[in-house]
């Protein structure tokens, strides 16, 4: 069999089966000969991802099926008992309930509000830059700083919120220790922080609306509401999907605010799976339960992201 020239492809030469097989093996060599530099460049990232991402995730799955006693170091296989324990734990039920409430009541107002604010800012003329910067400031502030800040102003004795309320004759509410209001506080803080990012994204999206379409709609006599519904909103559909996905995903990851402000809340009123995970791992030292929570969350987010991505792809077609 003649030596195969690396750049010749099977369909060029009418090779028989033997020679085709030889071509296939040499395409691997060809690949590396042509693409050795990108491969080399990807190796560090690959190593880090393997070591600190893939392996930990797999290790996490493994741990969730075992009971690991940190003190003695003994690992014993427990099968699904960790999952059964967690799934029947009322604290976990409360956590999941809280998280669902949080997601619904944060995402929807956040996106709507961000869009409205973005439109308002766009209509402001010269003050656009300052307003955009001001809205973005909460994002720059560390989560623990913002947690502390909100604790100050919500303080039942000296906080400004209660003082303003008392001017209207309302009694001071202990916002963070009342089971009815604690979750509401976390929601408000979440919206407060999330506005900056989303407003900025929407402003960028609004800038990309074609002027011709706007002019055409105005000439056709559309009023502002109609312009919004038929021109503006469809044009920013990509940004809207992006904002929705990122907001929902970041809702799953909320941790610092809870840890700094309520530590899970009065009677688990603000507990959430991510926080409970941390509690199980670093307060109760039960790695088995902690990793089973993290595995379940992982799967939940994965499924959710795939659903959302598929809907986004369909919408873009």
């Amino acid at each position, binding site marked *: 069999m003649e030596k195969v020239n690396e750049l010749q492809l099977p369909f060029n030469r009418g090779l028989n089966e033997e020679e085709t097989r030889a071509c296939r093996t040499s395409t691997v060599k060809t*690949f590396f000969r*042509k693409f050795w530099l*990108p491969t080399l460049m*990807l190796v*560090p*990232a690959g190593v*880090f*991802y393997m*070591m*600190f*991402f893939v*392996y*930990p*995730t797999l*290790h*996490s799955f493994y741990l969730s099926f075992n009971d690991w006693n940190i003190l003695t170091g003994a690992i014993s296989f427990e099968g699904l008992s960790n999952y059964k324990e967690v799934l029947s734990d009322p604290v976990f039920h409360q956590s999941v309930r809280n998280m669902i409430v949080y997601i619904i009541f944060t995402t929807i107002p956040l996106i709507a509000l961000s869009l409205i*604010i973005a439109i*308002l*800012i766009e209509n*402001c*003329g010269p003050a656009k*830059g300052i*307003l*955009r910067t*001001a*809205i*973005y*400031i*909460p994002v*720059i*502030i*560390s*989560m*623990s*700083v913002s947690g*502390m*800040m909100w604790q*100050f*102003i919500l303080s039942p004795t*000296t906080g*400004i919120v209660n*003082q303003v309320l008392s001017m209207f004759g309302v009694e001071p509410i202990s916002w963070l220790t009342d089971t009815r209001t604690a979750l509401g506080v976390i929601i408000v803080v979440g919206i*407060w922080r999330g506005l900056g*990012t989303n407003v*900025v*994204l929407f402003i*960028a*999206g609004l800038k990309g609306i074609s002027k011709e379409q706007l002019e055409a709609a105005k000439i056709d006599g559309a009023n502002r509401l109609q312009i919004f519904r038929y021109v503006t909103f469809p044009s920013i559909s*990509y*940004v809207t999907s*992006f904002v929705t996905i990122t907001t929902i*995903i970041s809702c799953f*990851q909320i*941790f610092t605010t809870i840890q700094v402000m309520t530590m899970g809340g009065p009677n688990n009123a603000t507990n959430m799976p991510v926080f409970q995970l941390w509690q199980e791992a*670093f307060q109760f030292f039960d790695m088995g339960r902690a*990793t089973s929570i993290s595995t379940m*969350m*992982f799967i939940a*987010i994965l499924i959710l*992201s795939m659903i959302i991505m598929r809907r986004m792809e369909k919408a873009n077609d």
Partner: protein
Amino acid sequence: MNAVCRKKYFNSDRVIKITSFLIMAVFTLIMLVPVVFMVLYSFFPTADVNTVMEGANIFKSASLEGYRDVFRQTPFLKMAYNSLWLSVVQTLLQLIMAFFTAYAITRWKYPKRDLIFKFIIATMIIPTVAVMIPNYIIINKMGLVGNKWGVVLPFIASGYAIFLMRQFFKSMPESIVEAAMIDGCSEFQILFKIYLPMMLPAIAALTIILFVGHWNDYQWPLMVLSKPESMTLPLALVRFENEGIIEWMPTAAACVMTMLLPLILFLITQKAFVETFADSAVKG
């Protein structure tokens, strides 16, 4: 938008501009209330904030006691140094890693290239908690718990940084690169002599974004660093408790000081900061 009737001063466009501005101004002020009051709390003993509201005796009761307490009760300068060190080192390493990785993903076309990119995006979606506990175990085995390198190591490959770098590379014009290849430049020459200078402003914006993000990091440093001398500023804020009662003045003072650096950096670079972040997402 052109005003249809230029004779009226208060035509509908102007009214909308003014109304929007007023609404936004009020809203923004309300949004910044926590920040403003935190700054106030750091200078005034808490009992007097009521009177500040009513506008009396503002400057008489101002004191720097809060700030003094911060330096007395905690190794604040050491912690600030830790924050600085971590921010700089993490940003630098992530930039370098992202630079080469993103280049490898954009410059050449090869099978599975897009798959690799999708994998990197997927890593951004996974909640960091799922990875944090096993990472803690690994760092523990390496003996890096309590060590600053333990904080840095697992997250050098940052999906966010790689994603943005890729957007930057993609926005570069192909023509210059082709001209360079015709002139016989080597791959590394192309990378460093052509791409890098053109991307410098964007990379600068990304640097600031990453720096601020790392300065404010809480969750992972919380797990790795437990000794006060090795803590970062955001971690230190929750430590001013005296038998369960939080001392507001030093806490507020510490908050203000922690917030100062990212705020200043942000205000200086606002336009670049915001636009880099937004444009890459919108064009994505």
